[in-house]
């Protein structure tokens, strides 16, 4: 590619100059994004963390593409508050949009700077090109390369005005499936995870959590611990540090056995989630108010229905883990957090430390699907490390604590009403959504929001989680506004102002229930109108990209003309994620004989420009399987004092013998912005399963999960 622009160091404010690149505007120095390292490699720095979604590979592809170097020359530096660009939290399917666009622009500017250096050295005004990092003049090697040209400090300058980047039509690395750069370590068992890190002199800590959500530690009794263990007690926070993890675990068990607690019953009745959601005090906010009295006057048929989801657990494969070292007034933390910078600030605020003295290094954990226990484990490690200054302390949660103390995805209820006119068109829609907040990450709502802070002496209970602005894109309102062509629409959020069970972000936030509800209701309305579910949706869609994914999934799943088999059903679900991001339509095949079995799922997705097609397919497949697991198996159970789904026995997820076959088709959208792919499938898949089950079982189940028991209940209530 020929040099077409020179970065202008300017003097103007990067926030204005780089407004189209928010991450770059916030971190404008080029060397904070990339470095040409010895040995002919390029190291890129991103503020986005890898947790199995493959983002580092996609970012490496973007850098390789823009720099014209081979992909295997690019490595990604671990994220650290000590040097990485601050890009906030890795969430919301925004990494490629934010970090990718910043990195692309930074690489384009670095490339232009180096080509200008080369032109200077060669005394040429002719066009220079780059082949795998080597500088070519008129197609011939010049003996110069990025690595010979990149003098120290060259990239220590602010990005200038945006320069043109390669159009996707010229891509050869991005836009093509690339093997994930992290997988070779993972198939050979090499240390890759935070859980594998062993620091010199490291000690091992365990925390003894209260025996109930609300409990006060009255006394520690006499656990009879060996002298080389250190017990840490602060209020109702209890933990232990030992030379080895096995010993710490034994000591924690002894401590738990000896400790005396006062337990308060604080949880709602698990058998009546609707009662809990509808009776709690709420803050009510309009999400959408689109009035059309003339249209509303044409209603001839009305329907109302309520849909619910239970509390859902992240149920990460690995219990949360963290390492911390307390050195005088400086604290160093290793965490698998999704937001290293937010965690740093929350730790500093919670423990009244200077944020400049707190460093958070990210290391990979098991797959994260939202705000799990990672940040809380980091505080645990700091609290234990404070008792043994100078020594790193590694804390590992137990499986039981992971299932019960990590924040949960909130239970929700959506009440939908719609009116059809005499032609069977939807003319009015009302949607009310009850939920606890989803935005409970560290620092949100001006609070550190770390678990153990509430347990420390003088600690206060965490306030109910915020939910973000009621935009239809955030929190429980995500996808609460149907994406169909309906003249009269009112959507209201009812955010619960009490939080007996701690809630926060779980993959797709409110979209999972909202789309399940909307798309289930669409099938119920289609039935009222005597229309085929696919035709009914298409008749209410005008966005051609939306129509295309619906048409394509119908086509490749063989929707039309599929013979009906007794006990088997097919259903469709569609949504545009957040109402403004990726499009996804899913068809599910469900068998409902002795139990509810999802056999196959077909998905068509339009996620704009794609960097790594196989990465997108992997994310969509995984999202579909996880959504099928949520929709048919998962439910957090609790009694009046504590969470009781503590293991894989009591919180089952779909297994190899139960998972559906999944087929994904990417609908090309050349020239469209990247939208992210990690969350698009959650809502549509659940809805497709619900609709397929309604056909297979002959009864509509509106309360998740869609289990055999729920089918029987729906038949009885029928």
């Amino acid at each position, binding site marked *: 590619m020929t040099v077409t622009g020179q970065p202008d160091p300017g003097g103007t404010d990067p926030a204005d100059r780089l407004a189209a690149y928010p991450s770059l505007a916030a971190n404008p120095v080029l060397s904070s994004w990339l470095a040409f390292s010895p040995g002919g490699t390029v190291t890129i720095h991103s503020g986005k963390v890898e*947790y*199995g*979604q*493959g983002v580092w590979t996609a970012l490496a592809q973007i850098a390789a593409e823009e720099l014209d170097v081979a992909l295997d020359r690019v490595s990604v530096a671990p994220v650290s508050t000590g040097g990485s660009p601050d890009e906030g939290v890795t969430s919301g399917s925004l990494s490629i949009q934010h970090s990718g666009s910043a990195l692309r622009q930074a690489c384009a500017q670095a490339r232009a700077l180096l080509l200008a250096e080369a032109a200077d050295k060669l005394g040429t005004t002719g066009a220079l090109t780059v082949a795998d990092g080597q500088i070519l003049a008129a197609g011939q090697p010049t003996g110069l390369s990025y690595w010979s040209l990149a003098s120290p400090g060259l990239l220590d300058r602010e990005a200038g005005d945006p320069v043109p980047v390669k159009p996707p039509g010229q891509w050869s690395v991005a836009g093509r499936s690339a*093997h*994930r750069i*992290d*997988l*070779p*370590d*993972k*198939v*050979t*068992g*090499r*240390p*890759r*995870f935070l*859980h*594998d890190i*062993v620091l010199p002199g490291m000690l091992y800590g365990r925390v003894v959590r209260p025996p109930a959500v609300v409990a006060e530690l009255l006394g520690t009794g006499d656990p009879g611990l060996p002298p080389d263990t250190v017990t840490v007690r602060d209020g109702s926070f209890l933990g232990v540090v030992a030379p*080895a*993890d*096995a010993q710490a675990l034994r000591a924690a068990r002894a401590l738990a056995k000896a400790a005396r607690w006062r337990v308060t019953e604080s949880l709602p009745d698990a058998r009546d989630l609707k009662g809990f959601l509808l009776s709690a005090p709420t803050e009510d906010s309009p999400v959408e108010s689109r009035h059309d009295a003339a249209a509303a006057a044409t209603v001839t048929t009305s329907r109302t229905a309520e849909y619910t989801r239970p509390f859902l657990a992240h*149920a*990460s*494969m*690995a*219990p949360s883990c963290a390492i911390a070292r307390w050195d005088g007034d400086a604290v160093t933390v290793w965490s698998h957090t999704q937001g290293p910078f937010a965690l740093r600030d929350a730790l500093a605020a919670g423990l009244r430390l200077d944020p400049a003295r707190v460093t958070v290094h990210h290391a*990979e*954990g*098991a*797959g*994260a*699907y939202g705000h799990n226990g990672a940040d809380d484990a980091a505080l645990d490690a700091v609290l234990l490390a404070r008792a043994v200054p100078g020594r790193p302390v590694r804390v*590992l949660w*137990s*499986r039981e604590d992971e299932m019960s103390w990590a924040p949960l995805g909130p239970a929700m209820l959506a009440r939908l009403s719609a009116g059809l006119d005499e032609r069977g068109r939807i003319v009015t829609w009302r949607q009310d959504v009850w939920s606890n907040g989803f935005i409970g990450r560290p620092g949100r709502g001006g609070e550190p929001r770390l678990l153990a802070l509430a347990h420390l002496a003088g600690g206060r209970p965490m306030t109910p989680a915020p939910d973000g602005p009621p935009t239809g894109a955030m929190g429980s309102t995500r996808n609460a506004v149907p994406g169909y062509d309906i003249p009269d629409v009112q959507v209201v959020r009812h955010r619960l102002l009490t939080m007996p069970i701690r809630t926060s972000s779980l993959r797709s936030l409110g979209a999972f229930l909202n789309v399940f509800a909307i798309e289930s209701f669409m099938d119920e309305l289609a039935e009222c109108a005597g229309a085929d579910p696919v035709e009914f949706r298409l008749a209410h869609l005008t966005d051609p990209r939306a129509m295309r994914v619906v048409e394509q999934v119908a086509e490749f799943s063989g929707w039309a003309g599929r013979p009906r088999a007794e006990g088997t059903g097919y259903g469709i679900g569609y949504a545009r994620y957040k109402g403004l991001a990726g499009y996804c339509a899913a068809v599910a095949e469900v068998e409902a004989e002795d139990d509810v079995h999802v056999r196959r799922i077909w998905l068509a997705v339009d996620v704009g420009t794609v960097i790594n097609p*196989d990465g997108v397919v*992997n*994310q969509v*497949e*995984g*999202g*579909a*399987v*996880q959504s099928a*697991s949520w929709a048919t198996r998962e439910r957090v159970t609790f009694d009046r004092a504590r969470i009781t789904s503590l*293991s*894989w*026995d009591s919180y089952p*997820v*779909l*297994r*190899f*013998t139960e*998972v559906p*076959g*999944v087929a994904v088709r990417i609908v090309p959208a050349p020239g469209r912005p990247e939208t992210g792919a990690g969350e698009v499938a959650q809502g549509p898949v659940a809805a497709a399963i619900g609709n397929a089950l309604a056909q297979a079982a002959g009864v509509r189940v509106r309360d998740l999960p869609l289990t055999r028991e729920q089918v029987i209940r729906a038949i009885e209530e029928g």
Partner: protein
Amino acid sequence: MEQHELHVTVNGEEHTLACDPDTPLLDMLRAGLGLSGPRFGCGVGLCGACLVVIDGKARSSCDYPAWAAEGTEVTTVEGLRRAGALHAVQQAFLDEQAAQCGYCTSGMIVAAAALLDANPAPTEREVHEALDGNLCRCGTHRRVVAAVLRAAHQDGGAHESSGRAAR
């Protein structure tokens, strides 16, 4: 705590390790021998992240007491490489990109390798059943099954291909 001497062969090397006899084998492998492949997931043998091959059989190591490992031959994912080359299952996991976070991958590869040792040409159903004790939260099951079948196909050659065709 009473210390015992444990004699165990891990990835072809004989070791004598001092340990409390009730210590889980997983701790001996990770803390004692510095292996990182077998991983802790649940501690009660329900998720498969800690699977290793013990005397030819894939077993969870998190709930396998060290005393019971006396005199056994243990293979972890690190021990599957032959002469520096990846095991066919490891290569197939890369070829199929059969992972997301990869935390459970070692256990799945070990389970698959043990399956193919016992049954070089499994059906898809047999692969599902062999891996049913391995949980994956990221939803990569389809890819994992494709990888195991690919490895079986590549390892098996003509003989086993014809065996599969006859099924």
